[in-house]
């Protein structure tokens, strides 16, 4: 049973780790994402150099971005920075999971920020995407 607590700068600990639930990427997800970002590349729906359809490289980025929601009630926040390395294609049918670790928190010009490193893996443990993001905390 997870006990959620409000996300505050004080509650956040550098070094704390998050793990998402496993998530099955479906063809419908690929289709919805294509609509959302208005990118209907033919490789998302048919043959590609990888031997079949692949998903948009950023398809599951929100899984990583929302890692903190697995433990905290997030009042509001703004995304300040994002880094990606796309290591292997994501495909419908994969079950993916993201893991993250808070590597820094800091205050600048009266604003509070947290920095999280993440990896997104398939169910065989292959790293698909890794990176780091910085989020600004908006107080309640």
């Amino acid at each position, binding site marked *: 049973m997870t006990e959620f607590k409000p996300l505050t700068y004080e509650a956040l600990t550098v070094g704390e780790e998050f793990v998402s639930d496993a998530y099955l990427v479906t063809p419908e997800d690929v289709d*919805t*994402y294509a*609509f*959302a*970002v*208005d*990118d209907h*590349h*033919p*490789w998302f729906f048919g043959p*590609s*150099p*990888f031997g079949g359809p*692949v998903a*948009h*490289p*950023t398809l599951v*980025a*929100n899984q990583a*971005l929302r890692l903190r929601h697995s433990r905290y009630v997030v009042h*509001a926040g*703004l*995304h*300040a*920075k*994002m*880094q*990606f*390395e*796309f*290591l*292997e*294609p994501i495909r419908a049918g994969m079950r993916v999971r993201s893991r993250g670790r808070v590597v820094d928190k800091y205050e600048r010009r009266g604003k509070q920020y947290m920095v999280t490193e993440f990896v997104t893996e398939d169910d065989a443990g292959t790293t698909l995407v890794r990176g780091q993001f910085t989020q600004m905390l*908006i107080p309640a």
Partner: protein
Amino acid sequence: MAIAHDIAVGQELPPLEKDLTQRHIDAYSGVRTRSIHTDEAWARQKGFRTTLAQGMMSTAYVSEMMTRLLGAGFIKGGTMAVAFVKPVYAGDRLTVRGVVKEVRPEKDGTRVVVEVWCENQHRQKTAVGSASGLLA
């Protein structure tokens, strides 16, 4: 889809234009109450004039531009580092731009590094950074 093989430093990539409707934002973020992305009243309460697009949507646009340039060499082997410097609101039109900054050999091939940015309909930059991928 044709992939460009003659890539030179200083080359400008074909820009992408994106109209960010609330429907696109809803599809991207998932509709939730108390969300600055999909709950207009909540967004106003938090000090914004209306709902905001997730910054992550701009990374998808950069990804599209880089995949058009490099194809498989971005989907496997691509990188991106972007800072979100200004909010993007529902109803904004973004233009995504890129200029090739570097072409360098690596052990797995030739890496193409592109300076990327998004600007809104007022020509204000909303996201800035770089992206790279491998030339097939």
